[in-house]
């Protein structure tokens, strides 16, 4: 499904291409699970033919159901996990031709969990300095200075330089993780739920910091999150994933406003605004949970979709693309008759 992207015109594609920094094309990753004495090994399609791209200096946010493949996609972008198929282009060149170390210097991660992603036996200075040592950047006093500079930049007091992670608060640990990612001056930072372990006031500080740093260093972020408030705040482009596939993507405000895909509607309808007069949202998507081991035929979302039509269980919805972005749904494929009209909510 995701490979047939009908673009309105070739020129448009060529024009955007120049500024595209990271381009994932039909990227897939399958895990083999099970396979014990009692059961046969089966395939788990964690990421299925994903097409996303991000321009230099932009923030691409990836949202989606738990288990929909966001982290797996992020790990492939980082070069930690090889894709099963598809390719990734960095500045137009295939990533497969770039060696791991060079790639690591250009693309750095910030993980969700500031508690377990820092080595407990290393001091703050050692943790932040390690990438410099790995990449052989500076040495001795110059390296120390660089560590101090970045610490100051992310708002970490020099006092903490010899502290261990367990002596830091959650917010401080996340700043250490950010400093470690930025010290080698990467072009792209893949942030996997960088603030979900933090409370709102610390989260606000970290988000403000990430935005400042992006402006200062012209960074490009891949921002994986399930907090749509955060995404709305930080993203330029948005991709929505469901069961390993991108079901909708486009400029943030278009996706959030138009909510063309029924899953996007369900996702946005589940946001819990702090309004005590409201209870839990009544999800119009049934009680069912999707089973990645047995993906439904046709559109993977059809068993839960309030707008499903007969064609939805039979045929994979093709890509529909216009200026508001890309959507994979039969409501927009012509079969569903409403073609380009955004559906009523």
């Amino acid at each position, binding site marked *: 499904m995701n490979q047939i992207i009908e673009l309105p015109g070739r020129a448009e594609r060529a024009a955007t291409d120049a500024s595209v920094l990271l381009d994932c094309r039909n990227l897939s990753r399958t895990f083999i699970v099970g396979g014990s004495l009692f059961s046969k090994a089966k395939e788990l399609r964690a990421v299925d033919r994903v097409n996303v791209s991000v321009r230099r200096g932009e923030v691409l946010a990836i949202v989606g159901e738990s288990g929909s493949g966001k982290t797996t996609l992020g790990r492939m972008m980082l070069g930690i996990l090889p894709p099963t198929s598809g390719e990734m282009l960095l500045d137009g060149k295939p990533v497969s031709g770039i060696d791991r170390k060079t790639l690591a210097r250009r693309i750095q991660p910030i993980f969700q969990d500031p508690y377990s992603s820092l080595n407990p036996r290393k001091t703050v200075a050692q943790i932040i300095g390690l990438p410099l040592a790995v990449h052989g950047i500076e040495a001795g006093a110059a390296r120390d200075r660089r560590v101090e500079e970045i610490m*100051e930049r992310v708002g970490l*007091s020099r006092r903490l330089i010899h502290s261990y992670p367990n002596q830091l608060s959650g917010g401080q640990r996340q700043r250490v993780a950010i400093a470690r990612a930025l010290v080698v001056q990467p072009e792209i930072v893949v942030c996997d739920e960088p603030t979900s372990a933090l409370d709102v006031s610390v989260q606000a500080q970290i988000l403000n*910091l990430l935005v400042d740093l992006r402006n200062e260093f012209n960074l490009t972020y891949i921002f994986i999150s399930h907090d749509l*408030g955060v995404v709305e705040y930080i993203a330029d482009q948005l991709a929505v994933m469901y069961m390993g596939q991108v079901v909708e993507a486009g400029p943030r405000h278009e996706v959030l406003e138009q909510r063309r895909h029924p899953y996007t509607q369900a996702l946005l309808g589940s946001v819990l605004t702090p309004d005590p007069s409201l209870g839990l949202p009544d999800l119009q998507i049934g009680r069912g949970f999707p089973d990645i081991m047995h993906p439904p035929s046709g559109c993977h979302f059809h068993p839960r979709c309030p707008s499903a039509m007969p064609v939805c269980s039979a045929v994979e919805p093709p890509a529909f693309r216009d200026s508001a972005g890309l959507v994979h749904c039969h409501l927009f494929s012509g079969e569903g008759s409403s073609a380009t009209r955004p559906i009523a909510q």
Partner: protein
Amino acid sequence: MTITQVRDTSVQPNGGSGHGAPLLDVRGLTVDIAVPAGTLHAVSDVSFAVNPGETFCIVGESGCGKTITSLAVMRLLPKTARIAAQRILFEGRDLLGLSDKEILGLRGNRLGMIFQDPMTSLNPVFTIGNQLEEVYLRHRNSGRREARERAEFLLEKVGIQSPAMRLGQYPHQLSGGLRQRMMIAMTLMCEPALLIADEPTTALDVTVQAQILQLLKNLQREFRTALILITHDLGIVARMADRVAIMYAGRVVETGTSAEIFAAPQHPYTRGLLACIPVPGSQGKRLGSIPGIVPSLIGENEGCMFRNRCPYAGESCRHGEIALRELSPGRGYRCILEPGHAISEATREPATTASQATVQ
């Protein structure tokens, strides 16, 4: 963990809706932890009560003592901690007076806890199935078959399909959200009367989160399970809580029903917290954040712990213990300001930017 029972009759924020004994009644809970630099006052004089079927939310900044409070109830504090309280009554029994064997019989059984970090509570070398069954076998007189059936049943409840395959997996093979749901299923193996859920949905997307929260609500309706929900997501608080305690630096600084807290927050910290939430239309603007950082909890402390960050702080905030102002039973706050001192949030200095403020 050293336990001291104190006899103390100071007035405490009341909790509970009145009729009948609460399921859990915590009075004057104080937890001190010995650290190299001295004594860390993690929890100071905290009181609350939770009734059967009720949802009680504990909210507050990282490090304010939410987890330590729940670990005290579970009697799972680290060895370096000293706990003192007038009482921690659960189903009429004082938890502080129970033997280790008695508490083991309650934990995972009548008293369930969903821990904040699924990775530290799931054992990496055993399959998920093994770990879920183990809990059941420990407390129930039953065979492995029954335990496996219960595990599969609960996995479906928390939205994990292909249960047999998932039970055969190891924790590292699961996504963050799947791990968190495994933890929840594990806690529900024995139908606890009190469930303490420490940030149970941080790793979940909003649709699954809504489904899990609905599941918890259904449990409460069906079994009158009481829920202590620890979260920093004020959206969850608003939609789930019957009553709320806002904690700051080891103390409860405000209590009330969730309607009261959101409509008329009294403590300056509560107001700051409400201003930090990214809301639609916030793009491009800076988020509100509470300037400054939490003071050190090590050593003696006096006065209001929030004063170094509070826009209203004055001389009287520096000394003594700030008394709890009780507005009505169960509704109160610890601040010298008069009730309804509202100064519109808009007029307040927005946020120190993170990049300017150097964290100490």
